[in-house]
């Protein structure tokens, strides 16, 4: 089941490989079918998933796979390393509350991505092959429970992304692509060292051999005394934690490491921005929750305050930067930085409310920001520019578009009734409840105002008021006083066309539905989060009050 959902896109990619590159429509349809099939599978998995089983870690002495579900576990590589025992690498997939949420998100976003890739004309074949490769890698990262496997998928994402930005991107794409590639690789190479270090420090209680299984690694009892990352080598455990954290933080992206994001977004084509913001950023925080924190809980406990501070910086700094942007897409990119800051803050809270908030925020940010980028893409298609000041008064002429923009914008600024609010609220609840992060939370709430500020301001400048004198569209008034506008060289429908609506409406529905009653998604993750909090925070539990 999981293997299928992971490797479907690659299969589609191989099929596409066989299709002659002239048959663009067939290629598109094949990928769409693959994405849809993935979506169906995701729903099936969702239906089968038992939300009462926590996952996260193998119960001590219990089953080696813990309470994970839809396990697929076969030995992949088994070498004899002589004095170091056998090297066991497993093909080990499984889902728990953390994964299932992200799996759903990924499936959803991939479908949206394919749809929004429809207009792409340049080298369609290559594009969709890379796209499918990427979506396999993303899906794989979320379901892999073997560190080695995870790492393989993790690195596998880089190359397609590099080309997708680099070939189909905007004018400055080379720069953005190589920047993205180097940044993320820089983050992940250290992960390799930590991975190896962990391998030599952990034994699987059942086989007694070293293992890459994250489930085994998440149980501190399995660490060997005296090993490089064993319980007693404090220094190296700190180093390893920091290294891992930086690796993931680059993906998030966290404050000093965020500068690749705006460039990547501005240059990337719309579907890739959607994927990037919708799923890839989540991999950073997912990695923290799945690997970084459970494997080094005591370091995590020690670092809560720092993580929280970085979260706050992300929130406020991102909001301020967004406030100053002229390019709409760049503004949205910075808003992503700001919103991922909430996730970090929630993770720093180390209690159930915060963690649930964080994970739920990951999901919601995925859907909301996807909407944002799609909407940016819509206006970019028409005007070939994203300069916020080059429009004005669009509300009068593109009512449907404006309507959806308002929904998306308000969802992004956390309006109750839309999903973003609940996650942000929970993050704050958690962060404030935890004494460590309380002061940080009190500062971060400023993000609420500034978030509203840049969003409303851009909304006003683009959609309200009257047409700006130097606007990018022409305005003419016909005989009976009705005003009409048209963008230069835009032949299509002025307001949203069918394809754009089919992409946006489902997201709108999800955002509203989950804003009114979040349990369908939140119910999936509570058990796991509670377990995670237990694993992570023996200290924090006593310190709820």
């Amino acid at each position, binding site marked *: 089941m999981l293997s299928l959902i992971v490797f479907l896109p690659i299969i589609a990619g191989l099929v596409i490989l066989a299709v002659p590159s002239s048959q663009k429509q067939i290629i598109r349809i094949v990928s769409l079918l693959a994405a849809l099939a993935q979506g169906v599978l995701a729903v099936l998995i969702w239906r089968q998933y038992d939300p009462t089983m926590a996952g996260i870690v193998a119960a001590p002495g219990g089953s080696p796979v813990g309470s994970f579900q839809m396990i697929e576990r076969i030995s992949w590589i*088994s*070498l004899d390393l*002589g*004095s170091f025992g056998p090297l066991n690498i497993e093909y080990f997939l499984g889902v728990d509350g953390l994964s299932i949420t992200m799996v759903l998100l990924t499936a959803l976003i991939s479908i949206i991505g394919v749809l929004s890739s429809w207009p792409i004309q340049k080298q369609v074949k290559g594009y969709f092959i890379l796209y499918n490769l990427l979506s396999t890698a993303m899906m794989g990262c979320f379901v892999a429970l073997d560190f080695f496997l995870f790492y*393989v998928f993790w690195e596998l994402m880089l190359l397609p992304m590099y080309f997708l930005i680099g070939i189909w991107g905007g004018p400055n794409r080379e720069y953005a692509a190589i920047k993205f590639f180097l940044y993320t690789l*820089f983050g992940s190479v250290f992960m390799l060292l930590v991975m*190896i270090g962990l*391998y030599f420090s952990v034994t699987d209680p059942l086989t007694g051999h070293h293992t890459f299984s994250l489930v085994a690694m998440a149980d501190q009892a399995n660490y060997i005394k005296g*090993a*490089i990352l064993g319980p007693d080598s404090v220094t190296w455990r700190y180093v390893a934690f920091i290294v891992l954290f930086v690796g993931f933080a680059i993906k998030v992206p966290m404050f000093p490491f965020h500068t690749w994001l705006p460039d990547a977004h501005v240059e990337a084509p719309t579907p890739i921005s959607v994927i990037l913001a919708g799923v890839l950023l989540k991999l950073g925080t997912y990695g923290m929750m799945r690997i970084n924190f459970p494997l080094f809980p005591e370091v995590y406990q020690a670092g809560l305050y720092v993580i929280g501070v970085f979260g706050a910086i992300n929130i406020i700094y991102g909001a301020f930067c967004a406030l100053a942007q002229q390019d709409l897409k760049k503004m949205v990119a910075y808003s992503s930085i700001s919103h991922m800051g909430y996730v970090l803050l929630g993770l720093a809270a180390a209690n159930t409310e915060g963690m649930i908030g964080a994970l739920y925020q990951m999901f919601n940010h995925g859907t909301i920001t996807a909407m944002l980028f799609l909407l940016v893409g819509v206006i970019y298609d028409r005007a070939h520019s994203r300069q916020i000041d080059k429009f004005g008064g669009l509300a009068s002429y593109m009512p449907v578009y404006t309507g959806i923009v308002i929904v998306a914008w308000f969802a992004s600024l956390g309006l109750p009734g839309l999903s973003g609010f609940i996650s942000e609220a929970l993050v704050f609840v958690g962060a404030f409840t935890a004494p460590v992060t309380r002061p940080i939370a009190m500062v971060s709430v400023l993000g609420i105002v500034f978030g509203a500020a840049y969003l409303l301001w851009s909304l006003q400048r683009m959609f309200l008021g009257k047409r700006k004198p130097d606007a990018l569209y022409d305005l003419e008034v016909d005989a009976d006083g009705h005003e009409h506008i048209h963008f230069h060289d835009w032949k299509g429908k002025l307001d949203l066309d069918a394809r754009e609506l089919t992409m946006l409406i489902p997201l709108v529905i999800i955002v509203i539905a989950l804003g009114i009653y979040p349990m369908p998604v939140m119910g999936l993750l509570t058990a796991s989060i509670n377990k995670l909090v237990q694993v992570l925070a023996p200290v924090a539990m006593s310190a709820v009050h």
Partner: protein
Amino acid sequence: MFEMPSGAEIQSIISTLKGGAGYFIPEIYLSVLFMVLILLDLVTGKKNRGLLATATIAGLLGSVYFIFKQQTMPDVQFFFGMYALDRFGIFFKYFFVASGILAVLTTMVDDQLKKHESGMGEYYALLVAMVVGMMMMASSTDLLMMFLAMELVSLSAYAMTGYLKREPRSSEAALKYLVYGAVSSGMLLYGFSLIYGMTAETNITRISMVLAAHGYDPLVMILTVLLIMAGLGYKMGAVPFHFWSPDVYEGAPTPVTAYLSVASKAAGFAMLMRFFFVAVPHGFDMYVSPLHIDWLSILMLVSAASMIYGNVVAIWQKNVKRLLAYSSIAHAGYLLLGIITMDQLGTQAVLVYLAAYLLMNYGAFYVVILIANHTGSENLDDYKGLGKRMPLLGAALTVFLISLVGLPPTFGFIGKLMIFSALLAKGSLFMWLALIGILTSVISLYYYMLIPLNMYLRESNTPEEGVITTGMGAKIVTASLMILTLWFGLFFQPIANYAKYSTAIFGAFLN
């Protein structure tokens, strides 16, 4: 003062030789092949290129059979302990034969050598001679034998480097290679002579015994070590003994470059391992300080220097061959990391890494040749927009480069993985080396990716010529190399196991 040996002694000597010859069959076979090729070149006229190539490939394949038969034989030292037959040697025999075959394949597609009107007979003969020499380098257990083998390789390499007589760069490369090589081997020889002086032995096993037993004067030992390192470092192309490699690699015919950068480097490592692990007595107090006087600290510095220098300078290269040359210096550094750990895992890692290096480097050079056949140059700027014009080759080259960087899911990643595993298995001891390796590999990503960057992200400044067609054979070779690189990236178990099996002989000498 030396009295003549008696007849009986001569008898015994001859019988020993006969006995030894039984273990020497692949080498003998290949030497015969060497002569056959020359004769073949003589009998068949000028229009014999295809024939010769196929003959060479056939011959090399044939040798696999004999090597395979050796696997069943017990480990022995013969020819008065001058030469050994063991798993380690056999691994490298396979390795060198494979590289020889690949060298022939690359030669077959290379236009530069096609245009070269004079016969190719000597070329293939020399190629085979080099295979023999490298095999001997891998399995000699005696200073004399090592020296001879090394010279055999060097001499044929000089000739092959300068094979394009009309090509000034080729001649220049040959000259530099020659001078540099001659001096280096001179130093090596002098070092050998000093060891011989200290131990009165030439067999490395006995040398180590003597040194362990009677100890040694450190000063002389240092000198010896340094001189020998100079000789071996030259073969491995490791900083600071690498200077010849960029120029030679650039000037030599591309197939030869590939051959040198993979095979003779590997031979150098094989010899280093044998000599270093066996001949040098090491107590286990070697991990004191990087500056402590021993082989290990020298190797550490050499490896660190190679990784940094090779990668940093490679950033600057605009000629792809030269770029790969510098990168091969860096790879020498990574390989040394495996040797430094002085344990079985490390050795195994080195062998795996070499295997990976064989595939990916040959693959890269193969595609570079194919591209050069059409663009007529190896300059980065001429790669612009090639991705669209040669989809398969472009994809393949990208895979090979990714593998050279060491990203999953490629064989190169497995190599790096095992190397770093070996380092970290020693705890935090070699962490600094691991860090250097990691960081430099990030740097390497940058220059390796320059090639796909030019191929895909940039439009060619010349008007679009449409798809470049290459021969079906070339396509098959490229594709199979690419698939192997990816396949072993995912399922490296057999190779890794075989490498493990081959390192067994050092069990006694490694901790």
